[in-house]
């Protein structure tokens, strides 16, 4: 019953196919009703599973965090700190012993030899036994002394989830020092910009005259623009799928194969290949849809 492409449909909706494979599958989809149905079913399953909301009262989260932070933390860094104290003690003892031996050897030498060599070795034992000189932790006594205003330990705000709130499913960068570029609030702006760029690209592509000498350069430019837009298109489509924005997701879904086709054009495409893509753009009325949606999104943002 299943067509041989069904497995590839699964990879296609996950954005896991190469541009060439994706193009092949998208072409197949145009002529295979079974696969088109499979794609719709897979996307429907996705929305069912991703729309699942955890039963998580807000107080549970805050209580859990408080409980974890109240436990004697033995995090990697703190382990290191206590270990280093151990190492520091051993190092201090070793250096003291070495200093003692050196001291004794000097004590046994003639006084004139000691006078010529004493300043160099005698300075070392007091300077070396710092347990962790590079550690920036505020808890360590040395850094407390060096920093007159130590940072408070827990300053991050504990967010209270609203009742019924669905938590963001978009994975965020774990590393907090890296500024986030794709916060949900920015997604609309990015989508609007993306639509504008895609619209410009498709209009330009529609106007390329293949018989003119500059056509090859123009096609090369459109091709590189399409390549730039594909990745963003996939990201935004996933985002729209997750947030249940069906209209945007469907528009991005229609746009993707067209971008792929343009991105995969040869250096000097023949008239037929270009005509097929243009017809597809016309048939889907995608330029107008992009225009309408980008305007609507821009208005919503205003």
């Amino acid at each position, binding site marked *: 019953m*299943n067509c041989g492409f*069904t*497995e590839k449909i*699964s*990879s296609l909706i*996950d954005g*896991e196919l190469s541009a060439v494979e994706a193009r092949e599958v998208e072409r197949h989809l145009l002529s295979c009703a079974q696969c088109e149905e*499979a794609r719709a*079913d*897979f996307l*429907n*399953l*996705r929305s*069912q*599973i*991703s*729309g*699942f*909301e*955890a*039963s*998580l009262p807000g107080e*549970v*989260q805050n209580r*859990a*965090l408080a*409980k*974890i*932070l109240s436990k004697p*933390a*033995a*995090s*990697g*860094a*703190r382990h*290191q700190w206590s270990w280093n104290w151990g190492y520091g003690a051993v190092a201090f003892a070793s250096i003291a012993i070495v200093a003692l031996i050196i001291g004794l050897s000097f004590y046994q030498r003639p006084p004139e030899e000691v006078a010529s060599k004493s300043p160099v070795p005698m300075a070392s034992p007091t300077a070396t036994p710092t347990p962790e000189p590079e550690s*920036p*932790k*505020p808890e360590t006594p040395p850094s407390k002394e060096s920093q007159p205003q130590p*940072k408070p*330990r*827990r*300053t*991050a705000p*504990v*967010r209270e*989830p609203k*009742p019924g709130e669905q*938590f963001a*499913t*978009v*994975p*965020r*960068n*774990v*590393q*907090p*020092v890296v500024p986030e570029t794709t916060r949900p609030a920015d997604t609309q702006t990015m989508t609007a910009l993306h639509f504008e760029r895609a619209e410009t690209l498709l209009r330009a592509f529609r106007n390329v005259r293949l018989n003119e000498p500059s056509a090859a350069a123009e096609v090369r430019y459109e091709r590189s623009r399409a390549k730039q837009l594909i990745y963003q298109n996939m990201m935004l489509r*996933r985002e729209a799928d*997750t947030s249940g924005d069906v209209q945007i997701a469907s528009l991005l879904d229609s746009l993707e194969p067209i971008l792929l086709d343009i991105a995969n054009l040869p250096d000097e495409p023949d008239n037929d290949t270009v005509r097929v893509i243009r017809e597809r753009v016309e048939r889907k009325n995608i330029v107008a849809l992009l225009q309408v949606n980008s305007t609507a999104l821009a208005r919503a943002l205003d």
Partner: protein
Amino acid sequence: MASQDDEFTMLFQDFYPSLCRFLECLLGGRAPLAQDLAQESFLQLHRTAWGTLPPGEARFWLYRVARNMAINEFRKSHTRYRLFDRVVEAMRPAARNPEQEYETRERKELVLEMLQTLPEDQRTALLLREQEQLSYREIGQVLNVSESKVKVDIFRARAALRERWSKKVRVASAGVS
């Protein structure tokens, strides 16, 4: 620069809800147990691995540990926990909008019921893909399997769910007519 605890708090706020959801789906809807295991996973992270993992690795580490804990739970007796969880669920205060709550619950139960029919590895791979949006490579990293296995598992999971879903729809429509 934020202190270790601040960074940990931020990670917790970001991923605790996701981890609870992942575990709840994996465990067939046992929400209180999912919350406990999510807390335990974070506790382990805080006590053993925090500060030693490369940036960005903590999330994968959490999913790996949480999944192992869930597998341990599968091995234990199910009935006792299920009964306990249902009692806890029943004791919860009523929702503000009962109709909406009913629909949400129906939908949740359907999703959970369907997910429970899948083998554990397929279910985990599919959840990490659909809910957490991890790539095949990242899922392979969490589950310690190859990307090609992840691809096949996800496809099989989808194909199986699709078939069951259409059967359900057929049965429902036969019931109506």
